[in-house]
């Protein structure tokens, strides 16, 4: 299962809508009609920071992800990429 390159720039797919929730957030992709529940407010912060961050790693750092948790958040971003919620972008 390939992950994403944490040293590249990523963003939400333009057809994805984000609704913050007390438990984290709800992502809805209008193209695939898939829902993703983010079960963590910090992951929401990462996702919201991606568009302005030069890399996913930077987005995690900006959102305050502790270094030991970076793999876990990277795995979550990879899962979002596999479901087309995230797309790579040119920084």
């Amino acid at each position, binding site marked *: *299962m390939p*992950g994403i390159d944490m040293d590249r720039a990523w963003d939400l797919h333009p057809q994805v809508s984000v609704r913050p929730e007390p438990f984290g957030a709800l992502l809805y992709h209008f193209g695939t*009609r898939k*829902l993703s*529940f*983010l079960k963590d407010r910090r*992951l929401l912060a990462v996702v919201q920071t991606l568009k302005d961050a030069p890399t996913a790693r930077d987005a995690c750092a900006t959102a305050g992800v502790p270094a030991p948790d970076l793999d*876990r958040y990277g795995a*979550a971003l990879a899962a979002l990429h596999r479901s087309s919620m995230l797309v790579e972008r040119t920084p």
Partner: protein
Amino acid sequence: MDTTAPENQAHDPADDRTAAELADAESLIEEVSIDGMCGVY
């Protein structure tokens, strides 16, 4: 007597990594598809 051993029983460490990555991702996100659901729209 069949002495043929299954060929794919060798343990691949990558399997553990994949399972761990999946568990990591699932601790932070949960994905569902609304295709086929009635009354959603």
